[in-house]
């Protein structure tokens, strides 16, 4: 390594800027079969909820042009079993851990934050607010400034001092900078951009929506231009807020594009499904690209596309 490839998000340090994306690497167990988790900047775990969750019925996925829809529905064991099994295992691996949490009510977020506040070995909390708010007609938290802020504020109040909070935003909004503003005010130390876009595929044989839940989240290369735009817009509005970028990154060039737009770290999601080694390849290619473009330090490349040339 001849360049400084480390990064930091809200005070938390990471040896390199390549993370897994929540929900695209489980808790890291399977990927550790392909590479040591220590070679990732961080493992971002699948969003965990208060209680065990079956998730949605199948079909849960549909491939789309250069993308896919999913409606996993946050299947998981619930926070208690997660803390009992997954966190100790990840710690044993020596992995940097970012825990992603998701709730159905503001109180859920508060409960999750309290459960996590004294857990050792966690570098940051990612707060997935792209979940239906059961107390508000199932409207997604991330889609309105006030509900988004309420969820983040609940985490902030309950997490205690140290742990940086990363608010994960949805691109399915009229003005993503307004949502960013509200969660920053509510206490977010960083932002994760972007979650999936709401989409649908209809099976032209059954002539019904292909997914059991009708709609699902669109991810993969198809959405990369949306991710780059969202990151660029938010970076332009908030020059200093740490941003974890994600959305359709499949190679080092793609990751570099998000970095130039403003991402301080890049999460790899759907690309891992096509190639379990994706994160490693991307890490190496990104480092080479940063070097080839003359950056001595990764952080110099962050937001470089915003520069005003003389």
């Amino acid at each position: 390594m001849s360049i400084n490839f480390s990064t930091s998000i809200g005070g938390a340090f990471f040896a390199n800027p390549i993370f897994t994306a929540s929900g695209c690497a489980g808790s890291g167990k399977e990927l550790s079969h392909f590479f040591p988790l220590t070679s990732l900047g961080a493992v971002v775990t699948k969003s965990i909820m208060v209680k065990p969750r079956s998730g949605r019925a199948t079909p849960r996925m549909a491939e789309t042009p250069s993308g896919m829809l999913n409606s996993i529905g946050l299947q998981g064991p619930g926070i208690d079993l997660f803390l009992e099994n997954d966190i100790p295992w990840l710690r044993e691996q020596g992995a940097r851990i970012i825990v992603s949490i998701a709730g159905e009510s503001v109180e859920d977020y508060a409960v999750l934050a309290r459960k996590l506040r004294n857990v050792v070995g966690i570098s940051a909390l990612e707060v997935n607010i792209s979940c239906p708010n059961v107390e508000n007609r199932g409207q997604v938290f991330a889609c309105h400034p006030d509900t988004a802020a309420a969820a983040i504020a609940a985490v902030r109040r309950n997490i205690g001092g140290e742990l940086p909070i990363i608010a994960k935003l949805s691109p399915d909004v009229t003005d993503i900078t307004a949502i960013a503003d509200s969660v920053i005010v509510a206490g977010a130390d960083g932002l994760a951009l972007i979650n999936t876009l709401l989409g649908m595929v209809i099976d032209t044989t059954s002539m019904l929506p292909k997914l059991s839940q009708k709609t699902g989240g669109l991810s993969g290369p198809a959405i990369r231009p949306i991710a780059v735009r969202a990151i660029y817009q938010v970076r332009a509005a908030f020059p200093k807020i740490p941003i974890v970028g994600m959305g359709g990154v499949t190679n080092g060039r793609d990751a570099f594009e998000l970095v130039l737009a403003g991402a301080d770290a890049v999460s790899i999601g759907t690309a891992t499904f096509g190639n379990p080694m994706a994160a490693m390849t991307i890490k190496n290619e990104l480092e080479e690209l940063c070097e080839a473009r003359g950056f001595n330090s990764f952080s110099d490349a962050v937001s470089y596309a915003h520069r005003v040339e003389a």
Partner: protein
Amino acid sequence: MINSKAVQLSAEVVSNKKVGAYHHMVFAVGDMAASCRPGNFVAISVGGASSSLILRRAFAIYRASLRSDGMGLLELVIAPQGSGSKWLVAQEPGDRVDLIAPLGTSFGIPKEPINALLVGGGYGSAPLFSLAETLKSRGCRVDMVLGASTAGKIYAPLEGKRSVNSLTITTDDGSAGIAGRVSDVLPKLIAEHDVDVIYSCGPMAMLEAITLISQRTDVLHQCSVEESMACGIGVCMTCVLPVEGEDGVIRMTRSCVEGPVMDGNKVLWNTSREIPDGVWGK
């Protein structure tokens, strides 16, 4: 957990032959061939560079063999259906594909010689021939039933037939064997051959029908399920179905790591599009 033998490699196409409605394809995979067990599957990247197809496709391993000259071969039987499989069957000897294998669970092989009935639907016959050989080598009696909509969709190569005691064929249109479905002939075969275990692979509706029969006749049933898979390695949670665990709890269970081979009696069938009551976390 993921199959501990799984490796990712670039495999050269050694041969590609059309057989009825299918393509029999052979890939050079080196030593890895030795770690494949009947029932395991492979996940292959499709579409080539700059493809719009971003997910791997899963295929049951038809046969895996490590030759004495050190050449490891992996054989698949592929039905050209949508864009991914059509791309794959268009690959020619010398072309290379990115492949991960072996993945998933394999058929349980009994320690004692038993009477086994192998049931395949369409390309679901693929993993059954290597299973038949293994069972034979353990002294089992092996009878086989293959069903399909029509004769061209029965995949039953000559050398495969040699490893079974009897082969019954059913087709929906009667173009080969008995007109009807595999489930029509099962009860008689189970009784006739005093079957201990059914091994099956095919469409989910067929597996469900077999499970009902196996329950009525008190026969064990190991089936290889087929759910849409986005990753094939256990990280995406798309390939789940409700399965009762050893602790009696029914969980949405990943068929790519805790399957594809599962105990048919533990699967809650026909539950696509809704989560059945009683599933953990519903």
